[in-house]
């Protein structure tokens, strides 16, 4: 059962009644945790440090770990550049639409798979899980060719258009979201929806009035997952879009800011930090849901 486990307390231990061994174990734990935290946090911190430097300071090769003349000019420059704002806008609109599409597909499907045993439902649930294991790097070439063929056949421009990503991304988000929603829905007691049916509720009403409110934590976890996956996706937009006005943030930063011989590292780091900001902000506020979704993914509901 994948109920949302939020363990804020953990095992409670009284500090006063600790043996000498435990105190030393605790000290060593903190020591190594600090070391690992330095390892894990160096790149993001270094992004921040570099983003506050001017190009002159970067090329002067002073101590790279310190900012001597902090400036916000990189941020001002990027946030007033139409090109960067265009990337940001493309990424946002794609991610939001993908989240909505994902929810519209996966919630009803998960409801049906969790509650209505029908012919082939077990096979379909397993199939959904297997689809989740298929990586994007296996499908980008046939999808690229498919889009080209459809484009030639119908005359609708598909390649090099951001909206095509709205159709492609759900292949990455829907299987996982359906899978964890099946788990959450299956953990709801049967008595609850039986009572609703007896009271004359239709299937749709049972879903909207019972399942969605009760499984809301799971729903939030699935939404966060869908958003972060579509925000971070790099391979599909790199293959399917090329014009500058069609790029999403990760591709835009790596292709437009790194071109030619001169790497403007201050701007690249600022762009990367701004690109990492939305997932980080969501994570900062909804950490428990994020972690619940993470741990629910690899285990059956």
């Amino acid at each position: 059962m994948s109920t949302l486990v939020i363990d804020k307390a953990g095992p409670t231990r009284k500090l006063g009644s600790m043996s000498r061994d435990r105190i030393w174990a605790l000290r060593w734990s903190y020591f190594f945790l600090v070391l690992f935290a330095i390892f894990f946090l160096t790149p993001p911190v270094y992004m921040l440090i570099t983003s506050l430097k001017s190009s002159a300071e970067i090329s002067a090769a002073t101590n790279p770990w310190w900012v001597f003349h902090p400036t916000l000019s990189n941020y001002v420059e990027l946030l007033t550049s139409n090109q960067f704002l265009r990337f940001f806008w493309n990424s946002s609109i794609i991610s939001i639409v993908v989240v909505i599409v994902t929810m519209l597909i996966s919630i009803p499907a998960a409801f049906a798979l969790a509650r209505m045993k029908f012919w082939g439902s077990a096979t379909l649930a397993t199939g959904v899980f297997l689809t989740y294991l298929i990586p994007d790097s296996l499908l980008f070439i046939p999808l690229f060719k498919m889009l080209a063929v459809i484009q030639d056949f119908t005359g609708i421009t598909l390649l090099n258009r951001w909206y095509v990503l709205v159709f492609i991304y759900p292949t990455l988000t829907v299987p996982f979201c359906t899978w964890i929603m099946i788990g959450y829905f299956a953990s709801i007691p049967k008595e609850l929806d039986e009572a609703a049916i007896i009271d004359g509720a239709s299937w749709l009403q049972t879903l909207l009035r019972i399942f969605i409110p009760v499984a809301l934590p799971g729903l939030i976890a699935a939404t966060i997952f869908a958003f972060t996956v579509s925000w971070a996706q790099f391979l599909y937009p790199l293959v399917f879009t090329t014009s500058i006005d069609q790029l999403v943030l990760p591709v835009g930063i790596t292709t437009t800011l790194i071109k030619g011989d001169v790497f403007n590292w201050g701007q690249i780091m600022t762009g990367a930090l701004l690109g990492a900001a939305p997932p980080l902000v969501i994570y900062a506020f909804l950490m428990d849901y994020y972690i619940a979704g993470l741990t629910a993914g690899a285990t059956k509901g």
Partner: protein
Amino acid sequence: MADVVVEQGRRARAASPRKKNASLRNVLGRKSSVAFFLTLPLILLIALLVLYPAFYSLYLATLNKAMTKFVGLGNFTFLFKRETFWMVVRQSCIFAITAVFFKALIGFIVAHFVHNIPGKKQRKWRGMLLVPWVIPPAMSTLAWLWLFDPSYSAFNYTLSFFGVGPIPWLGDTFWARFSVILVNVWYGAPFFLIMYLAALKSVPDQLYEAAAIDGANWWQKMWYVTLPMMRNIIAITTLFSLIVTFANFDIVRILTSGGPLDRTHLFATWAFQVGIQSNDIPLGACVSLFMVPILAVAAIFILRDVNKRGNEA
């Protein structure tokens, strides 16, 4: 009571003149047809955008470069004769196995440290240590690229104080492979940390107390209590990570683009270079198809474990 009667009467009256509508509602109300309509979008999505492309890529792999002629297994035999292909196979295996091993090891160790400290502080530390997993990999890899920069590398600046000469992080075969694996470990270890931490918390304290009464030392507790209790999570997490790492694209693409001299190419990045950049779609499809056997084996094991877990619950 009276309300109910009135309500029923109204419903009966409303239903009788429209018999056709009622029978339609009957069909819609039947469980299996409702279920079918609810899962239809999912089935369509998987069939059209996952299954169809998967088989389409099998077909593509049998065409010549201009995609005009059927060449059978020609692309495959061509690949077998190329040295780069075997290099990519070896590099992918080295990359995936080494990276997953170190991710699992670091995740396991750090999970124990986090589990050791008082409950209230665990939340803060866990939140901090999970940050690499939250940042989109393309963005964080850019930070690593800058840390590895040949002339301004912050690592080399720091190492120079210890008398260690400038390391060619991305220029030399060994160091380029090392860097690529390091970044992957950095990105993936937090996932293991979270999974193992959840598993550690699910081990009942009584088991440790019983082991302590029986006189078990630290290693025995670890070997006979912790590891058996975590076995399932360890297996699933490792297999999961093996799939994701094996199919990795972002990190190698941004850090080295496969260089120096194709020495860091993985299946995904080489397929991209061959299929999209050099415009040989059949050969690219062929390269990426070589990922399937390993993915399939891992998937079968995951499925077995997941089902076993489901039966236990």
